[in-house]
């Protein structure tokens, strides 16, 4: 699915293929969207 990775600086070295993630839910423009953050908090 298309989504956003949150809770981490958007730099290539922080966004690795196959990294473990956990879901978060964000309110945007009156809707709730599922987004994902690195599992276990900010790495």
């Amino acid at each position, binding site marked *: *699915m*298309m*989504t*956003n990775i949150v809770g981490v600086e958007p730099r*290539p070295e922080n966004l690795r*293929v*196959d990294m473990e993630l956990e879901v978060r839910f964000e309110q*945007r*423009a009156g*809707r709730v*969207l599922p*987004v994902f953050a690195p599992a276990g908090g900010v790495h």
Partner: protein
Amino acid sequence: MRRSLAAITGAAETDLGRLDDRSELDLHVEAALLALADAGLSLADVDGVTSAVHNPVEVAHALGVEPTWFDGTTVGGTSFLVHVRHAADAIAAGHANVVLVLHGESRRSTVGRHPRPIPADGMMGQFELPYGVYGPPTMFTLPYMRYAHETGTTVEQLAAVPAIQSEWADGNPRAARPTRVSVDDVLASQPIAWPFTKLMCCMVSDGGGALVVTAADRAKDGRRPPVYLWGAGEAGQSPLVSQMPDLTRAETFERSSTAAFREAGIAVSDIDHLMIYDAFAHVPLYGLEALGVVGRGEAGAFIADGNTRPGGWMPLNTNGGGLRYTHTGMYGMFAIQESVRQLRGEAFAQLEDVEISVVQGVGHFFSEAATLVLSNQEPM
């Protein structure tokens, strides 16, 4: 082999680049008149018209043509490959005799450019756009991260795609980027969407192109050497790049090329010249693997090692491609035009002994695909 052979008997491009004095409709009309003159035919001969985005009847009306057959299939940049296939079938069915396949786009100057809205209640509007992606640079490039991870393709190999294509466009006065660039130049250009830099992305230009398609027996009497359609295929999958079943394979390319090669009765070893729609540098990598030119994960090294450059055994994107020649937004027309030029012996970077040319088109972000097998020889 197709049950009834069709041929491209006229082909032409308009001026390219920044054309702020011409609307998109003007570009369609200008291209049509140039291609008809090339074919030695007149508007009175035309009974079929195709166009993408613009209603083909609107375009026909601008030309003063009342068509008996038309096709407005709009599936992104591969639309014109699809139109050639459909036109050949329409001619075989007796629905038309002389078809104009038309393209005109004012992507850069946006003169008379119809809006291309993405509906908020469509699939992309609901499930992808809310995350901030919009348009090709941030969508088409995403699958490449998985591809590079699984295949070990390096960013230097990705940068070799535009670098080597720049050798083909070197000095071509019609090319938007007519100079050679190195892998280092490509890597040093402005970052666009990691790991893609500006020179790994097509440029944005204005321009038009047109093809005249007729029955093959009629083509022999034309004023230009016929380019026969030996085989064609098309394939569709998901409208969403995120829903590709396998992010590392262009399955639509596999399906359309398999159908086209089967119809034409050819194998990869028969291909003398190849065009793979290159909106971004990774698309030729996916294409080479999907068409079976190389095995999985081998395309980056294949290009970086020089196999597709001038003198290489699989000449690829010999006009410089969308990365170096032109890209009006729907580039497929220009890929076909370069195949026609090569098969007629009139390309800027002309190859020797070209008999079979393959054009691989892509619509949107691997959503649709079409393949044409073209030849200057009548099939045996």
